[in-house]
């Protein structure tokens, strides 16, 4: 589809909900999901019968159950005419918003709950299969932590040691988490740049404070057409105006540069569709499983040239009151990663900010937000899914 002169505003986000993020709650993913749905119904005044679409993310905790999406409907009392299960890892929520928009435009449903719930820290996942038992596990590579250790080392080799920038990001996000009552309580204490630099090395050069802590939690967005929102008389918070996605970027290359990511495709696509350039972006809610991912995202969406991410970070105030607010709820790194619902954490924060309901960490003039997602770790590269969504305040 050619880029539009004016981004379409025919799709509306009309609600959001989020549980607290916490460690080993003992709750199920269904139970966490129920809390999100209740919050959305309370805040919008809508009922179960008003929701006729469900887009739900795959989980770690329920991954052995092939009927997870169907059982969610049964557990939550939903009777959708369109049901979508997204296996995009941390890219599932904004991928779900884009798919919901397409389904609504195609007349398959009118109002979609885009849901993510995962009790990963209470119910860890089973085996992944594929090539891993033969060509990964015997090496002892420590999953995502090991893969991002390899990536960080290579990045430092090509572009210089990014420690100072990563330390700044760690502190910025932690300061935001201190203002987020829904963040994981264990992480709600201040840190300094030195705390980051001295934190335990887990997969050298990767540190403990480069990484997320896996928790339990759930979040969701309610998406409908702008027309339907007006008919129902509900407040429109935001419009999704641009989206880009790619899976298995560079997947046929035998010796790719692993510092090049799918954001070089997905980022510019989303921005162009939204009619935005980086200097027009008001805030960033970027997927942050590891801090180094933020540098690569900034570079490849186009905020700075390749390899200049560290300098860009050092030159920019990412505080919620700063010039380019970043991950204002603390992000996954400092609010905790609610398993595969982690991709919804920053998306919900973007919508909350655009609604002007972010309380002590509210961004001034919240006119738009760039949200990104990252999903799954492939063999010997960076990550498998990259996507980007632009939201514009209604």
């Amino acid at each position: 589809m050619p880029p539009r002169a004016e981004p379409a505003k025919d799709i509306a986000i009309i609600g959001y909900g989020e549980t607290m993020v916490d460690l080993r709650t003992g709750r199920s993913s269904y139970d966490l999901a129920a809390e999100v749905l209740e919050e959305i119904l309370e805040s919008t005044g809508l009922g179960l019968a008003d929701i006729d679409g469900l887009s739900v993310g795959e989980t770690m905790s329920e991954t052995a159950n092939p009927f997870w999406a169907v059982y969610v409907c049964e557990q939550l009392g939903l009777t959708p005419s369109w049901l979508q299960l997204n296996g995009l890892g941390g890219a599932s929520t904004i991928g779900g918003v884009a798919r919901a928009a397409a389904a609504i435009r195609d007349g398959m449903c009118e109002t979609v709950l885009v849901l993510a719930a995962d009790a990963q820290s209470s119910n860890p996942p089973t085996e992944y299969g594929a090539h891993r038992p033969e060509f990964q596990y015997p090496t002892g590579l420590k999953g995502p932590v090991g893969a991002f250790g390899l990536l960080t080392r290579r990045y430092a080799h090509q572009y210089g040691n990014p420690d100072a920038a990563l330390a700044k990001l760690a502190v910025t996000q932690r300061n935001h988490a201190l203002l987020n009552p829904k963040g994981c309580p264990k992480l709600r204490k201040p840190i300094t740049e030195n705390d980051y630099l001295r934190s335990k090395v887990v997969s050298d050069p990767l540190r403990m404070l480069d990484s997320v802590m896996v928790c339990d939690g759930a979040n969701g967005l309610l998406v409908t057409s702008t027309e339907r929102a007006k008919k129902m008389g509900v407040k429109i918070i935001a419009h999704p105006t641009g989206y880009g996605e790619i899976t298995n970027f560079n997947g046929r290359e035998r010796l790719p540069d692993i510092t090049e990511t799918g954001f070089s495709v997905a980022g510019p696509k989303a921005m162009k569709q939204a009619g935005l350039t980086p200097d027009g972006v008001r805030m960033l809610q970027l997927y942050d499983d590891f801090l180094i991912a933020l540098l690569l995202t900034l570079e490849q969406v186009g905020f700075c040239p390749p390899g200049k991410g560290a300098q860009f970070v050092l030159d920019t105030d990412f505080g919620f009151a700063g010039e380019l607010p970043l991950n204002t709820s603390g992000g996954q790194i400092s609010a905790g990663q609610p398993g595969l619902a982690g991709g919804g954490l920053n998306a919900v924060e973007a919508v909350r900010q655009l609604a002007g309901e972010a309380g002590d960490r509210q961004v001034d003039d919240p006119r738009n937000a760039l949200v990104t997602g990252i999903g799954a770790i492939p063999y010997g590269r960076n990550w498998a899914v990259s996507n980007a969504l632009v939201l514009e305040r209604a």
Partner: protein
Amino acid sequence: MNADAGRAPRPNNYTDTTPFWAAAREGRFLVQFDRRTGEPQWFPRSLSMSTGRRELEWREVSGRGVLYSWTVTHSPWPGHEHRVPYVCALVDLEEGVRVLANLLHVDAGSLTVGQPCQLVWEDLGGGVRYPAFELR
């Protein structure tokens, strides 16, 4: 029992890797090559990334490569606790594929990107040999 027996791979888990593991027992590293284009690929798959066809053959490679990146693992994957610290590396083989493997017998503090590496075989016990690298 060898402490590394728990690390043993599970052959033929997703595609037929019998030729690879048979050659591994003889100390030969086999890689898939596309029969039409001659392009190699690693890890083994059921079709060629080069053509989308299943016209693949196994050929022995030199085992010579260079270090692309590495990480020193202090927080181990389950079953590898007794090996800490150990080095996981990406090695680019001369033939043009990148392999994830352990780098053995190295001083992790003095490694540099681009260092020449040579394939070695690690004995995991029970007759299982697994590819790893050393500095050349």
